[in-house]
């Protein structure tokens, strides 16, 4: 068992890393909103699900790929991938902003606590998941393969696959842009101000509603990118995918410490790797259990997650 594990260590690690980056991007959808509103953005999982379908539609219907088409190469390939990525990000971003308008805005103005928005967000995710379920006849939808998943070379003994490499590189670029946006721009500063102290931010003339919309937009863009990467890696989607990945990504956000970007990063990576290693040792059916047990242990020793901001702690 251990020998096998060492043999496959690098290929497992690569798979785990690319999964981890998908988790990071979805986790950002949770964590950015949580940072600003202190609310779980329950509908984020369905934003992800819708984004996977946006990618499939671009590849299948806009560029007319079928299961038997020849792989695209060169410029055409990058055009297809680029269009799909941008389209799913835009769809997810817009959807996320709309969700905020429908499910959160009114309740936020009424100061209704955290549970009422949670339920209305659950309502929105039911509507989205059900609408897609009806449109897809409750069946999973396969995405045609647009590119050859060629091997770029070997890293130790592991095959470095093109799709995994694209995911890791593109995700890192997106994260760098996001960090620059949050840390360097005026809007990013406004987001940080609102997350630190909403009332003080308001007194300084920051338009809170605008900042919240921007936060949902940015979270949605990241989640949308995750949808594209997911389809690139697994080449299918279904109406229930949001639920499965959403819980994992939310766990990742908490594992790292919800509310900050660094936390989502380390949490996502840790979860992607842990899940992959745990499935290897214990079989895929136990991976969720392992992840949750680890989450409990981490939170038990570090109640705010690995990199969480210190919140008021209960003494107990």
């Amino acid at each position, binding site marked *: 068992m251990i020998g096998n594990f060492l043999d496959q260590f690098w290929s497992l690690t690569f798979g785990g890393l690319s999964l981890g980056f998908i988790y990071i991007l979805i986790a950002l959808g949770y964590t950015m909103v*949580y940072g600003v509103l202190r609310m779980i953005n329950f509908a984020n999982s369905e934003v992800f699900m819708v984004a996977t379908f946006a990618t499939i539609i671009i590849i299948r219907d806009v560029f007319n790929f079928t299961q038997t088409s020849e792989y695209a190469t060169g410029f055409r390939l990058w055009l297809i991938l680029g269009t799909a990525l941008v389209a799913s990000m835009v769809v997810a971003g817009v959807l996320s902003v709309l969700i905020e308008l429908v499910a959160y805005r009114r309740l936020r103005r009424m100061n209704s606590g955290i549970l*009422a928005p*949670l339920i209305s967000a*659950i309502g929105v995710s039911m509507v989205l998941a059900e609408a897609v379920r*009806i449109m897809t006849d409750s069946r999973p939808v396969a995405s045609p393969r647009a590119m050859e998943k060629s091997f770029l070379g070997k890293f130790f003994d592991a095959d470095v696959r093109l799709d995994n490499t694209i995911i890791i590189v593109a995700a890192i670029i997106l994260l760098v842009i996001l960090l620059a946006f949050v840390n360097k721009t005026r809007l990013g500063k406004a987001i940080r101000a609102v997350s630190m102290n909403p009332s003080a931010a308001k007194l300084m003339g920051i338009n809170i509603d605008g900042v919240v919309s921007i936060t949902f937009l940015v979270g949605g863009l990241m989640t949308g990118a995750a949808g594209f990467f997911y389809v690139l890696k697994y080449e299918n989607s279904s109406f229930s995918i949001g639920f499965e990945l959403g*819980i994992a990504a939310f766990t990742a956000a*908490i594992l790292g410490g919800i509310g900050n970007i660094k936390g989502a990063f380390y949490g996502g990576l840790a979860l992607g790797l842990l899940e992959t290693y745990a499935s290897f040792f214990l079989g895929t059916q136990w991976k969720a259990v392992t992840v949750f047990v680890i989450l*409990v242990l981490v939170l*038990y020793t570090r109640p705010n997650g690995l990199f969480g901001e210190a919140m008021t702690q*209960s003494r107990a």
Partner: protein
Amino acid sequence: MINLRDKGADIWERSNRIERTFIALGFIALAASLPFFGGTFLNTPIADYESVLVYPVAMFVLMAIGLNIVIGKSGLLDLGYVAFFAIGAYTMGLLGTRTGLNTWEILPIGIAMAMFSGVILGVPALKLRGDYLAIITLGFGEIVRIVALNLETLGRSGGILNIPTPPPVFGIEYSFDSHRIYYWTLLIIILLAIWMVRRLAVRRAGRAWESIRQDEDAAELLGVPTFKYKVWAFVLGASVGGAAGVFYASKTLFIAPDNFTLQISILILACVVFGGMGNIWGVILGAVILGYLPDRIRFLSDARLLVFGLVLVIMMNLRPDGLLPRKKREKPLPKEAK
């Protein structure tokens, strides 16, 4: 907006003991007579009306009352309540098929098992705050389901078959198709649960929960052993869920991991919030509506959950405190106004 909650409370407060008894008996009689309305507009188009009354309606009411102790009374967000329901059901399934024990003998064992797992989960989880508790409980709910799905003893995805029905009580037989007998039995269990919650609410525990919900730090400073009472709330909530589980298994005679998904936890949570967190009558109303609605609108067939989601969004936006919200303490006394 009309405040039904205050109107109801007003009538109740102005009645004397005898009137109150009549009001209570009237409601119980109304609830007990529900199975006889099968032919009216209440009828559910596809599912059998009386069976809908047992599950989901009455079962949801019972579980919502239990979850309300955790969320509504003490403000702890539990997203894995289905775990206790599952533990009760599997206790019934295992003991009912492997040993000679009957439902009424297993009921306390199932409740004890649910309470025990409530302690196991609650002691580490309740040291965390708010949203982290939500994810831990959510994870626990999934773990219970996954364990049931993968353990040979628990029948894997096939579940447990041929769970015995409850033995006759006072000569009344429980048979698979006599739904109303189950419904009335559940009604008695629900009344017991309501009685327990109402008694606790006016005692030390109820006051401790109320103070924890409003401001945990202040409660702690005033000497309320908050951790102890949080665990108590959690364990009591679990016991109600366990009781519902035992009875559920004994009613459906067949349980499988698919019956205990996260969706149930979320639905029960929706019942509590939709009806009016913290107010037991609101919670019951919420559970009745949300349990009943999906089956009543089955004529929408495929779109019914979509409509259900829309109803949740619209209702929460219109009445964020739920249909029958809890009484607001700060509100001026209505009697002076008149």
